[in-house]
C-alpha cells in the first residue's frame, strides 16, 4: 500500500509540472495569435493613440515574460484574472464567465457518461463472449459506422428523428441558469445521445479487443479445462486483467466529453465551455481563452492520472510485491 501511495504522489507531482509546462505553451500561443483585443474592439477606424491607450489600460503593452509571470502567479493562487470583455462598472472575472458554462459542460458530460460507460462495457463484454456471432457482428458494424460518421451528422440525424419526426425531444438545448432540472434533463438528452453514440463505439471496441487479446492466455485455457464456463471465464478471469487498457480508453473519452464537444454544442446551441472558448478566440478575450485552455489541460491530465492509478490498483504485482 505504501508503494502505491508513493506512485500516486510521484504522478501527482509530475502532473503539476506538466500543467506548468502546458501553461507556458498556452500563453505563448495565445500571445502569438495575430490581431489583438484592442483593435478588434475599437474597430478599423481607431487611431493608433486610442489603441495604445486601451492596450496600456489592459496591461498589453508590457513585455510577454512579465505578463506571463503575473498571470501564472495569480493562477497559482486560484485567480484566473478578469475578462477583457468587462468594462468600467461591468467588471467580470474569468471565473465568473467560465463558471456557469463549465457547469453546463460537466452536466452534459455526466449525463453522457452515465449512459455510455455502463452500456459500452456491457456491450463490449457481450461481444467478446459471443465472438463472431451475429450479435458481435452487428455490434461491430454499428460501432464502426458511428465512429466513421462526423458528430454533427449524427447530431442532425438524431434531431431529425427525435425532434422533427417524432416530436419527442426539443431540438435546441439552450439551457440557462434558471432552467429547472427536469427541463434541463430533457433539453440535454439529444446532445447527450449524440455524444454517447460516439464514445460508446470507442469504449466498446477497446473493451472487446482487450478481452479477446487475453483469451489466448494459458490461464484462460486452464480455466476452461477446470470446467469454468465461457461466461465466468470472461467475467471473473479475464476482466480483472483487462482493466488497465479499458480504464485508459474510458478516461480518454471522458476527457473528450469535456474538452472536445464544441461541434455538438454548436449544433444544439448548448451553452458549454467549448462554445465560450471559440467565441473568446474570436473577440480576442485572452484571459478567458487562457482560462479555458488551462481547464482543458487540467481535465486531461487529471483523468489520465486517475486511469493510471486505477491500472496500478488492479495490478496485484504492484499491490502485492514479492
Amino acid at each position: 500500500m505504501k508503494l502505491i501511495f508513493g506512485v500516486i504522489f510521484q504522478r501527482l507531482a509530475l502532473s503539476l509540472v506538466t500543467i506548468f509546462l502546458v501553461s507556458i505553451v498556452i500563453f505563448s500561443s495565445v500571445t502569438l495569435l495575430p490581431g489583438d483585443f484592442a483593435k478588434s474592439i475599437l474597430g478599423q477606424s481607431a487611431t493608433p493613440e486610442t489603441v495604445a491607450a486601451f492596450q496600456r489600460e489592459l496591461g498589453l503593452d508590457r513585455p510577454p515574460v512579465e505578463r506571463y509571470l503575473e498571470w501564472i502567479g495569480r493562477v497559482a493562487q486560484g485567480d484566473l484574472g478578469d475578462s477583457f470583455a468587462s468594462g468600467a462598472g461591468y467588471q467580470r472575472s474569468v471565473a465568473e464567465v467560465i463558471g456557469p458554462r463549465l457547469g453546463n459542460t460537466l452536466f452534459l458530460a455526466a449525463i453522457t457518461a452515465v449512459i455510455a460507460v455502463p452500456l459500452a462495457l456491457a456491450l463490449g463484454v457481450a461481444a467478446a463472449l459471443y465472438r463472431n456471432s451475429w450479435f458481435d457482428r452487428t455490434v461491430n458494424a454499428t460501432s464502426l459506422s458511428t465512429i466513421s460518421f462526423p458528430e454533427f451528422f449524427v447530431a442532425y440525424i438524431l434531431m431529425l428523428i427525435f425532434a422533427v419526426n417524432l416530436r419527442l425531444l426539443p431540438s435546441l438545448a439552450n439551457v440557462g441558469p434558471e432552467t429547472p432540472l427536469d427541463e434541463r434533463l430533457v433539453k440535454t438528452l439529444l446532445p447527450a445521445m449524440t455524444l454517447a453514440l460516439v464514445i460508446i463505439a470507442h469504449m466498446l471496441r477497446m473493451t472487446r479487443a482487450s478481452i479477446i487479446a487475453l483469451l489466448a492466455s494459458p490461464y484462460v485455457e486452464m480455466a476452461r479445462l477446470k470446467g469454468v464456463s465461457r461466461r465466468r471465464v470472461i467475467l471473473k478471469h479475464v476482466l480483472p486483467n483487462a482493466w488497465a487498457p479499458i480504464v485508459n480508453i474510458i478516461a480518454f473519452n471522458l476527457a473528450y466529453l469535456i474538452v472536445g464537444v464544441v461541434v455538438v454544442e454548436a449544433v444544439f446551441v448548448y451553452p458549454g465551455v467549448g462554445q465560450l472558448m471559440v467565441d473568446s478566440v474570436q473577440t480576442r478575450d485572452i484571459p478567458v481563452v487562457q482560462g479555458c485552455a488551462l481547464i482543458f489541460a487540467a481535465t486531461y491530465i487529471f483523468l489520465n492520472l486517475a486511469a493510471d492509478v486505477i491500472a496500478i490498483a488492479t495490478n496485484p504485482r504492484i499491490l502485492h510485491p514479492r
Partner: protein
Amino acid sequence: MASNPPPKPGDPVLLDIRDLRIEGESEDVWSPIVKGVSLKVKRGRVLGLIGESGAGKSTIGIAGMGYVRGGCRFTGGEIWFDGVNLRTLNERQLDRMRGNRVSYVAQSAAAAFNPAWRLMDQIVEVALIHGVMNRAEAERRAVELFRKLKLPEPETIGRRYPHQVSGGQLQRAMTAMALAPRPDLVVFDEPTTALDVTTQLDVLAAIKEAIEDEGAAAIYITHDLAVVSQIAHEIMVLRHGETVEWGPTEEIISRPKKPYTQALVSLRAFRKEEAPPAPPAPLLSVEGVTAAYGGAVTVLHDVSLALETGKTLAIVGESGSGKSTMARVVTGLLPPVSGAVRFAGAALPPRLKDRTKDQLRDLQLIYQMPDVAMNPRQTVEEIIGRPLTFYFGTKGAERARRVHQLLDQIELPRALATRLPTELSGGQKQRVCIARALAAKPKLIICDEPTSALDPLVAEGILRLLVGLQREEGLSYLFITHDIATVRAIADEVAVMFKGRVVRSGPLETALAPPFDDYTDLLLKSVPEMTPGWLEGALASRRMEGAGQ
C-alpha cells in the same frame, strides 16, 4: 475398429481413445496433426506420452478431456471416458466433467495461474463451481494436498499471488489444484520441463507420490524419456501425429523395437572422441571477474576461467547461476566491475565499442533461440554473407561461392541459400546461425545453450556438427548449458557455476567424477536416468544426506 464394443461405465479401462483424428489450421489450410491414434488408460495407472515437438502429444493429452485448442478441430475418432463418448457431449456437459473428473496440469504454471487471483481462490474454484465441496472443505482439502506435495507453509501459502512463489512451488500448487476434486484422471502436460534440474527432481517425486496416494490415473506428457520412465507404467512414443510404439515402460526402455525409439533411448550415448594431446596454448582467460547489473545486483563474484585453443570449456549451471552473464562479459556486452578478460595473449577491452574489428571477428556467438537471432526478412545467403562482407569485404560471385562452401560445411543443401528463416526447421536455423559464426573465421565461438530449444535428436545432430567443425578448424568453444548430458558429450574442461561463483572446475574426467562438492553432487544426482527406480534412489540418497548434516 468397428468390432470393438463401446466401453461401459465402471470398466477397468478408464479412458479409451479410438482412432483419434485432429486437424490444425494455419493460413486457412487445414492439415492433420493427429492421424488416427488409439490409446487406453486403466484406472490408477500412468501412461507416458513422449515425442518431439509437433508429435501431437499435447493435443492428444487434452483431447482426453474432450478439448481442442483454438485453430484445431476433431475430424474423427471416439474418446470414451468411463463409458461416455466425450465427442457426443455438449459444452455444458463437458464443463461439468472437466476439472472435476479429469483435470489438467499445464507446462508453465507461471502462465497458467491467473495473475490477478490468489492461489487458494483458484484452487478452490474447481470444487465450488462443480458444487462438490463448500469453501471451508475445499480449503482444508487444498492445505492437505499442499502438505502432501511438500509445499512450504502449507497453511498460508494459498494466500499468495502467483508471482509471489517460485516456479517449482507453482507447479506443485497446480498439481494440488488438479488433484483437489479427487479426479479419476489427471493430464500432466510437461509439468517439469520449465524447471531447473534440481527442482525437477523434487516436483517429479512429489507428483509421483501424490498420484499414487490418490489412486488417480494419469497421462504424463514429456519429451524426456528419462523423466517419463520414472513415473509411467506404460509409454507411448509418438511422431508426426502417429503412434510409433506403445508398451510397458520396462520394455520400451530396454527392448525398443522401432528404430526411432531405439534412437531416443540411445541418445545420450554420444561422446566426443579423445583429442590427441597437444602443447597447452591458452586462448581465453577470465581473471577474477566480478560483474553486476545496474551497478547494484552483483551476479558474478570473482570468477576465473581458462580455455585453451582447440578445446571446449563447458559452463554448467541452473537459472540464476550467472552463466549467461559470463558470456555477456566475455563478449563485451557487460563490462565487469573488476577483473579482466584476456584473449590470445592480449587484454580484451571491457567495452564492446573499444574492441578492434579483428577482436570482434575472433569472437562469435551462437544463441539459444535461432528464430530471434536472425533477421526474418533476409535470405540464408544474406544472413551468412553479411559477416563475409563486413569482415573481409567479400562480394558478388565470390561471396556466393563462400556461402555455398559454408552450407556444405554445416551439412545443409545449397538450395537453401535462397530461403527465408521461416521456411527452415529449428535444427536448420541453428545450423545457419553456426555458419554465420563460421563465416567470420573466429578463434572462439560462444555457444549460449544452442541445443536446449531443440528436440533431442536434432540437438544431437548439432552437437556432432560442432564437434566435427572443432576438429577441422581448430575452433575453441565456450559452451554454456544447463544440461549435464550435453557437457559429457562435448566438453574438455568443465566449470560448474552456482549463485555467481565457480564451485568446481577442471578437466571433464575429474570435474564430473567423485569426490564432489555438495552442489555438483546435487546437480549430478538430479539428472534423470532411465534406470527403473532411479527417482526413489536419488530421493533416498538426498534424504540421507539431509539427515547426516
